[in-house]
């Protein structure tokens, strides 16, 4: 337990000292929220779908979590290149614990970013449907954070070079985000888009958070929850497996 705690704490300390990087993490989602949320609001409303800002906030929260979690894997590459990983690999603790403690730290960071963004959206005019559901939304945000951190740890374990890691991340993140239900309702989209969004687990995470925040759902909460759980298990297993394979 204390091993997991100290490795979690390490991630939190590193994050809290990163200063400017914390702020930069909010620039992109804020631009999305302002440009899309306000820019497209009137068009969205005219088509009878209600407020676009309300609709898009859960999607933007998911985006923040996705990007922060995915780039967290860079820490693994960093630790490999600058040697700290060796310190943990010769220590008398299992690799599972090392991976799990660090991943929990990464997920906590993403979750904090997600919650802060939620706070900013309140300032910008977003109103949750029922505050009683907000804690449940935070649980889903936490699950998504941990799932993607697990995935990025796996990628970080396989890739050795930082540029390649950034390229792989962008290659994966952009389609996963844009081809999900984050930015538009799935009711009237072309069939191809629908199929892609249906096989994209991000759609279900967005849907779960959207349900708990604005009481709108496409798949229904039980389906969302089941897919989110499965995604978490699969991605964490992938991450742990890959992490175990790292050769010093």
């Amino acid at each position, binding site marked *: 337990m204390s091993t997991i*705690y100290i490795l979690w704490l390490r991630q939190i*300390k590193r994050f809290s000292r990163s200063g400017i990087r914390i702020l930069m993490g909010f620039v992109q989602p804020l631009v999305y929220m302002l440009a899309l949320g306000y820019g497209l609001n009137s068009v969205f409303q005219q088509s009878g779908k209600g407020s676009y800002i309300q609709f898009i906030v859960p999607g933007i929260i998911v985006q923040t979590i996705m990007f922060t979690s995915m780039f967290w894997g860079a820490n693994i590459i960093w630790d490999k290149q600058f040697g*700290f990983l060796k*310190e943990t690999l010769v220590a008398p603790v299992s690799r599972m614990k090392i991976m799990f403690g660090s991943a929990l730290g990464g997920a906590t960071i993403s979750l904090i970013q997600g919650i802060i963004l939620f706070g900013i959206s309140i300032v910008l005019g977003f109103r949750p449907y029922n505050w009683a559901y907000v804690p449940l939304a935070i649980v889903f945000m936490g699950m998504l954070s941990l799932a993607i951190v697990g995935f990025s740890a796996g990628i970080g374990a396989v890739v050795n070079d*930082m540029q390649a890691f950034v390229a792989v991340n962008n290659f994966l993140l952009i389609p996963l985000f844009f081809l999900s239900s984050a930015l538009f309702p799935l009711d009237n989209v072309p069939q191809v888009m629908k199929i892609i969004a249906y096989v994209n687990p991000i759609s279900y995470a967005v849907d779960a958070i959207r349900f708990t925040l604005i009481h709108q759902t496409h798949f229904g909460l039980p389906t969302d929850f089941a897919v989110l759980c499965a995604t978490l298990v699969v991605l964490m297993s992938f991450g742990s497996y890959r992490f175990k394979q790292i050769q010093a």
Partner: protein
Amino acid sequence: MQPIISVQHISKKFGEFTAVDNVSFEVQAGEIFAFLGPNGAGKSTTIKMLTTLLKPTSGELQLAGHNVTKEPNETRKVFGIVFQDASLDDELTAYENMQLHAVLYGLPKKETNSRIEEMLRLVDLWERQKAIVKTFSGGMKRRLEIARGLLHHPKVMFLDEPTLGLDAQTRNLLWNYIKELNAKEGMTIFFTTHYLGEAEAVAQRIAIIDHGKIVASGTSEELKQQTGTTNLEEAYLKLTGTQVRDETLDSAEGNRERFRSIMKNKQR
């Protein structure tokens, strides 16, 4: 008496390439042992096998009574290591790095703070305990690594080129700590270096490895007698030849090299 390190017929193959070829040697408890050889001779591979980072293809390794391959976790508790490259967390303070190590090695809570203080004082870094490691010079980082490696009372200390890139003053200081620990706590020291003068001055026994095989071992006197030379450097060159070795870098090391050269260019 049973040797504290026992290496019996160890081989390590990477595909077709044999990095370590049927190597055997022993180190007695309390000894200062130097493991020398040109780049790519198999030094680091041997240390990685002894410290559980790599599994040997064949042969048997014993460290302080533990079978290294079969009981990696037991083995990990009894040795400390200072790697060739830094392995500190640069974003944490010196004290935090020590604390993390203490938890990973399960040091009792009551003992932790006093032990960290003792070790930081030993390497003269106690005053800088709250500084972020990023701000340390190369020599300070190396001293911190030594302090950290000693934290959990290891019986054997591995030092892989501990003085590489340090100035003469710092090198002298480091060897003084190490000799002091060896004398006071009877700690076994296993080190590699390219500075043969250091090996001659410090090591009680020496083994020389080349092309994955041990080519000679004994005290520095014995090696000189064997080769009919007057100092260890000559003996070493006679045994391993004067040809320069090219070592290929793996990708992680390649990245570090590239990063360092970028940083150097930036500083200019």
